[in-house]
């Protein structure tokens, strides 16, 4: 037998009348903090402080392990050692596994970690030394914010803005998750209400949200420009979101969420989540990263890269004002964004070229794992539209960045 809503509530009232006694409630400090953090005047500055704190922890933690420790281990010891013991210098095998023989010459001045390019050198350096600390730092803070109960409040505060582009405040959750890895971010769009919201969210995540691995690489290579990269991407997120909301059919229902009280996170739960997410991430990322290294090295060895660079130079050089060599990172970007950014580290670029390359790499194609998931989650029409948005975005960004660069006299 099923009751109606009213009948069910009547029954709940009858049951609680018999079994529950509610005493006077005392307002606690926790309630006061809960109020402060959700009221716009105090909540918005608080949210900005939280995000800033998030970033500070992320960059300090990752920097401590990457620069303070792992870069030295790889650059001073492991990679030179591998180059000296790996057999067959000058063969393809050496190039693929150890990397470009030039970097192993005594007195080589460049950054051996990024420039070697072999599967066992750069291919291991990037995931272990740069990406792993960044991802762990990210997931630690994420789990903490989740368990303490802050995310719904952030969703409330940001709903005003996101609702203007047809999304929920709750869209902030897939967005933040995507800042760790786009794959779970795209998966989390299933929690949104309508097909339209899910589609829009997937496009915005796939195109405009860089993953933690990529952010880690950017922080390592261009820490002084990373803020501008974020600004460029945030503008795109809202502009494209606004346009899609106007032209894409479907409903954009309003937010309706529970705002739980704050709670002390338990250490076990935070660690467990961090651990599970980190291992899931590594399973998705590392195979693609290693495969990417093999493909890039093979393209160099066969001369395919030079051909590609030549064939694409009207767009890359003529359109975007970048040197032909950036074709290698662009190829790698199909597999992994962090690998692509890492490859930029091995190319001579001006500051502005570096900045535009990183932005273009971010928007031009989601990494393969995300792409596969999007194919699974979208229907043909949505997928076609996603590709359309991708193409338009890349050319718009390439052109606009070039114009700005020329205006500033740096491109």
């Amino acid at each position, binding site marked *: 037998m099923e009751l109606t*809503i009213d009948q069910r509530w009547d029954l709940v009232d009858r049951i609680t009348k018999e079994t529950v006694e509610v005493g006077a409630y005392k307002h606690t400090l926790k309630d006061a903090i809960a*109020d402060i953090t959700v009221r*716009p005047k105090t909540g918005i500055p608080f949210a900005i402080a939280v995000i800033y704190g998030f970033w500070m922890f992320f960059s300090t933690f990752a920097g401590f392990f990457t620069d303070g420790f792992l870069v030295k281990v790889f650059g001073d010891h492991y990679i030179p050692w591998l180059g000296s013991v790996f057999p067959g210098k000058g063969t393809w095998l050496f190039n693929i596994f150890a990397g470009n023989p030039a970097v192993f010459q005594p007195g080589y001045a460049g950054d051996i970690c990024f420039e070697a390019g072999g599967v066992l050198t750069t291919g291991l350096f990037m995931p272990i030394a740069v990406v792993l600390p960044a991802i762990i730092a990210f997931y630690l803070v994420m789990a903490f914010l989740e368990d303490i109960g802050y995310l719904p409040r952030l969703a409330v505060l940001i709903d005003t803005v996101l609702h203007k582009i047809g999304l929920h405040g709750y869209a902030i959750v897939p967005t933040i998750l995507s800042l760790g890895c786009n794959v779970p971010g795209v998966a989390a769009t299933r929690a949104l209400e309508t097909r339209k919201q899910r589609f829009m969210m997937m496009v915005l995540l796939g195109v405009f949200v860089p993953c933690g691995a990529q952010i880690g690489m950017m922080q390592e290579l261009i820490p002084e420009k990373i803020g501008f990269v974020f600004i460029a991407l945030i503008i795109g997120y809202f502009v494209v979101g606004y346009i899609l909301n106007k032209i894409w059919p479907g409903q954009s229902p309003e*937010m*309706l*969420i529970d705002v739980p009280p704050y709670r002390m996170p338990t250490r076990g739960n935070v660690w467990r989540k961090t651990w599970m997410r980190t291992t899931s991430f590594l399973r998705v990322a590392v195979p693609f990263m290693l495969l990417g290294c093999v493909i890039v090295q093979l393209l160099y060895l066969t001369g395919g890269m030079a051909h590609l660079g030549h064939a694409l130079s009207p767009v890359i050089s003529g359109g975007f004002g970048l040197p032909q060599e950036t074709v290698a990172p662009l190829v790698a970007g199909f597999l992994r964004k962090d690998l692509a950014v890492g490859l930029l580290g091995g190319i001579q670029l001006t500051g502005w070229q570096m900045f535009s390359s990183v932005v273009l790499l971010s928007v031009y194609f989601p990494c393969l794992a995300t792409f596969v998931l999007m194919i699974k989650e979208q229907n043909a029409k949505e997928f076609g539209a996603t590709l359309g948005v991708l193409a338009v975005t890349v050319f718009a960004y390439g052109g606009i960045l070039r114009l700005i660069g020329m205006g500033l006299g740096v491109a």
Partner: protein
Amino acid sequence: MKKKLSEMKYEETGVIKSIGSDLRAQVAGMGIREGKEVKMMSKQPLKGPVVIMVDRSNASIGRGLANKIMVEMKDG
């Protein structure tokens, strides 16, 4: 005096009188129903969502949905 939930001011308290029929089932499980006391906890600017308290629980509701809930205000 009756008014829409969305018209309640910050820290005002009232009793829920009616909920739009398309919304009732959705909010029922959150404990939001007719006859319950409701307090306005926060209103976001620019027609953003409101945060209300019912039965010691907070919920955030979009402004348009809050328009569909009528509240009887306490007199005086």
